[in-house]
């Protein structure tokens, strides 16, 4: 008995071992593509429906399950562009953007330093600190949330974006430390040792050798930091109490609260604009993202 096409398909036979005649192979390939595309269409239906609905008149949105509008309109975007109450769309966008950019800078800077120390330097307490760092990846934020809120409240930072971005400069997102560490471990140690023989200290080694070589992990961190901080709702909800600091996420929620249920159109137009940067980022960098996610989980 041989493994059938379906079995191979189900268990994922690795490449390079032909076991089917070419004609069967073509049929199998076509079936595979059809299955993938059908699944994908179902999976992405809500996204296409969102996009389509943003061009439908409000009355059509519930009635029309198809992503393609019966009647096209751009009015929704005209309304969405006016923003929410006194907040212009550009201000919401600028606020989201500043938080995300500062988050990226903070994460890349602080996590790279910590990752280098954990991956390459020998120091007392390394094992203990490393264990603690890994533990914080799994720590639910709620257990530090309230005292952090009290600290930022006492510092008079509630209502500013500082509580959202300052922690990122202190390597609080241990996931990225771990991700970069895994990457640094893959860089041959001989390079460090050569630098050491040439008289370079750890700072020089980091700046001239490791940092340039770990660039792919910095790119992965940049993209994840950007997308995650862009979509991060809970901390924004808690800390951004001054409407002038509202982000697109908060603006969207405010918009939903302020308008009646019938104004689905502008709501979806605004939703499309809110996720657009994430979609663009993803489209451009998807290789880095998917590979970054894959390696973080393995190579333990």
């Amino acid at each position, binding site marked *: 008995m041989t493994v059938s096409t379906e079995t191979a398909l189900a268990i994922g036979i690795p490449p390079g071992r032909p076991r089917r005649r070419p004609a069967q192979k073509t049929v199998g390939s076509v079936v595979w593509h059809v299955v993938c595309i059908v699944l994908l269409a179902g999976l992405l239906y809500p996204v296409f429906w969102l996009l389509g609905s943003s061009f439908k008149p409000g009355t059509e949105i519930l009635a029309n399950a198809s992503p393609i509008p019966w009647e096209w309109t751009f009015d929704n975007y005209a309304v969405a562009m006016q923003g929410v109450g006194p907040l212009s769309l550009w201000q919401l966008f600028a606020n989201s953007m500043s938080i995300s950019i500062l988050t990226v800078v903070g994460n890349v800077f602080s996590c790279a330093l910590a990752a280098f*120390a954990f991956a390459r330097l020998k120091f007392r307490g390394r094992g203990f600190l490393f264990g603690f760092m890994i533990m914080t990846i799994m720590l639910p934020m709620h257990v530090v949330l309230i005292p952090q809120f009290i600290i930022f409240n006492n510092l008079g930072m509630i209502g500013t974006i500082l509580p959202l971005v300052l922690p990122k400069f202190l390597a609080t997102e241990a996931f990225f430390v771990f991700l970069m560490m895994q990457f640094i471990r893959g860089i041959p140690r001989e390079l460090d040792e050569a630098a050491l023989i040439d008289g370079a200290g750890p700072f020089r080694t980091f700046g001239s050798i490791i940092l340039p070589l770990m660039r792919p992990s910095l790119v992965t961190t940049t993209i994840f930091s950007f997308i995650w901080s862009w979509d991060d709702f809970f901390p924004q909800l808690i800390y951004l109490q001054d409407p002038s600091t509202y982000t697109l996420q908060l603006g969207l929620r405010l918009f939903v609260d302020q308008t009646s249920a019938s104004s689905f159109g502008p709501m979806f137009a605004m939703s499309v604009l809110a996720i657009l940067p994430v979609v663009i980022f993803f489209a451009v960098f998807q290789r880095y993202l998917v590979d970054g996610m894959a390696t973080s989980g393995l190579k333990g």
Partner: protein
Amino acid sequence: MSAAAPPIRRVRPRYQNAAWVFLSPWIMGAALLTIGPMIASLVLSFTDYDLFGTPNFVGIDNYRRMFVEDQRFWGAVRVTLNYVIVAVPLKLALALGVALLLNRPRKAQGFYRSAFYAPSLLGGSVAVALVWRTLFTRDGTVDNTLSLFGVELGGWISNPSMALYVLVTLAIWQFGAPMVIFLAGLKQVPGELYDAASVDGAGRWRTFWSVTWPLLSPVIFFNLVLEMIGAFQAFTGAYVVSGGRGGPIDSTLFYTLYLYDRAFTAFEMGYASAMAWFLLVVIGVVTLLIFRSSQSWVHYAGDE
């Protein structure tokens, strides 16, 4: 050669001071934003702190209220457990299924992998939660489609016995992240094992359970722990779909949503701290149980 010749072995100098410099941001963060606040919230959980007054020590009152008096607390626990138990296995099963489907040497594999992954990046946003809210509302797409097949459930959002499943579907929709990790794991399964299985006449199921499952079990374990921890902390979807209230009649009152409500609507910081610590303990215990159970079903290469 002189007696002072260096020994011929690799010397890795200890860089104590340099290490502190590199680690200083992280150590400050760990001390000021993690360890300090963890201790503080444990202390606060024994007080009646309300953010404005001075905290008074109230002993175990918060915990007694939580466990004995507060019906909404137990409701939130039930809703959250229900969500974790239903959403996590379904999400992982789908992730594994699609990973097995995609794990073939085909040209478009990379494209499909990225496309299936995309929802994981969008699913946490307010925008997508609003889409879900609209799709599952009365006379929305889901309701209308089911009606075509004679299933009259009405709007899921307003139905206390269905509302939670709206959020379950939203969680399952984001199966791409564990799927990508499964795919990376599948690539490491040696092809010879499949050859051997096929020579031995193993069928599809047999091959999956005897080869793929055991070899993939460390990855399954990793995904299970990660997804479980994440699911316990789900928030945005429930907040947006229920308009921040966890309704109808608390059917989507996730633990985190109730904690948020206690802390930032009622300003019961002491009570919310007690809730946060209970969450930490529950997540810790469940993680420990999964670790314990892993000895019987997770196989690491080189164990035998």
